[in-house]
């Protein structure tokens, strides 16, 4: 397992977020997250004690931040950075590391030890979220394809073409959206 290369990944993600208006990205992310949490309710039940905790996720190489609160009607809010925001727990790092960690491709502890990511605030809440996400075996390409519903066949085709490129950019293994690794 190699360490991620954040720079190229951040460029791609940054371009994507500049092309996509923030309100649309915000709405799409919210709906995607609600679907992921609903589809993996057993796994996310592991962090029931911290459902009200506010997590601030900061991709340090992008001009945005994500405010996450699982029991909120708006469980994820995408904001321009810096934005005033109270939080209980904060995780910051290159977008490529954060995506790879959510996808189970890189180990969160190792990213922390190597200073690729930093954490602050309620350590128990961060551990619970890390363990819940890891238990859910999230496969982001698969989740996104499922989220697109009737557009899934087209999305699947697009991802089959794009994934090898994205995987090289992020330097992580990205499974095909047709193959859930659970």
């Amino acid at each position: 397992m190699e360490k991620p290369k954040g720079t190229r990944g951040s460029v791609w993600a940054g371009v994507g977020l500049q092309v996509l208006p923030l309100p649309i990205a915000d709405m799409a992310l919210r709906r995607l997250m609600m679907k992921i949490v609903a589809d993996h309710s057993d796994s996310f039940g592991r962090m029931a004690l911290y459902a009200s905790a506010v997590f601030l996720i900061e991709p340090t190489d992008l001009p945005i931040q994500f405010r996450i609160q699982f029991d909120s009607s708006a469980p994820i809010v995408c904001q321009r950075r810096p934005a005033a925001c109270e939080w209980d727990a904060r995780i910051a790092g290159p977008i490529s590391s954060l995506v790879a960690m959510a996808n189970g491709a890189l180990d969160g502890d190792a990213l922390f030890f190597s200073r690729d990511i930093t954490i602050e605030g309620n350590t128990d809440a961060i551990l619970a979220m890390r363990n819940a996400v890891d238990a859910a075996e999230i496969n982001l390409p698969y989740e996104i394809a499922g989220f697109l519903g009737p557009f899934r066949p087209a999305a699947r085709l697009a991802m089959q073409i794009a994934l090898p490129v994205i995987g090289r950019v992020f330097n992580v293994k990205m499974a095909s959206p047709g193959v859930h690794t659970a």
Partner: protein
Amino acid sequence: MTNRSRLELVCPAGTPAALRTAIGAGADTIYCGFRDETNARNFPGLNFSKPEMEESIAYAHERETKVFVAINTFPRAGREQLWHRAIDDCAAFGADALILADLGLLAYAADRHPQVRRHLSVQAAAANADAISFYTRNFGVRRVVLPRILTVEEIAAINREIDCETEAFIFGSLCVMAEGRCSLSSYVTGNSPNLGGVCSPGSHVAYREDGDELTSILGAFTMHRVGRDVPAPYPTVCKGSFAAGDFQGHIFEDPTSLDASRLIPQLAKAGVTALKIEGRQRGRAYVGAAVRTLRRIVDDYAAGLPISGNALAHLSEGQSMTQGAYRKVWR
């Protein structure tokens, strides 16, 4: 090229997902625990519910993989039922062994479920042949997980005198204290790892960034202050950096991890039956990488091939590795 006996690779799982990952990566055996204070890795969001444990044992057995369940904390007075139920559930689910430390639990398991193998947890800190023989004679213990304070020569001496199997840690986070008896974390946090299952609990851990400096804190005490390019340590007292007289630094142990993979031939010769990977609290990426790498090394050894160094330092605390007490140089 000679064929040697194949050492059993015992691998960690903190979730059913990690269990599946470990089996896919080549684990012979999984060890795991319930999501409560009965096991010594009781971190938030980790471990197995009872239905998950039952399903996971069945999943593992379908793939010819064994499951050992760690019930290796010490019951709180008046609350023994929680630990007894955990043992009863494991027996009902078909667990291949119970990993126990407490004398009362060993007696309970031997009395109520004699058909289930009993292994002695590292938490029992049985570090000599007389102590181990006490457990084998009185509770029918079939295997002992050796404390990480023994040299290879001491392990060989123990194995010559005992009549049960031994399991030795080969990789992962390193505890250098007499496990099950260490009170450092209790002193600082008020919570006992030996009763509640968490050393340096996250509820008492804080990280503070000030410019390039990262400070890690446990309870009311600063454990480390490190600069930008220095690996981030987890704030345990035994690996903290302190001032004592004219000395400032890691008084007990550096923040480093165990990698004894190069000692597999010596451990096999010393009579060890199984090699254990630490890390139930780690994610699937760690479990997959550690199990795949050590599977290859153990198989290479069994096939008579030379053992190559592994490349797992990036997974470890301190980003550095040690052979720990196996190669003790301070005596």
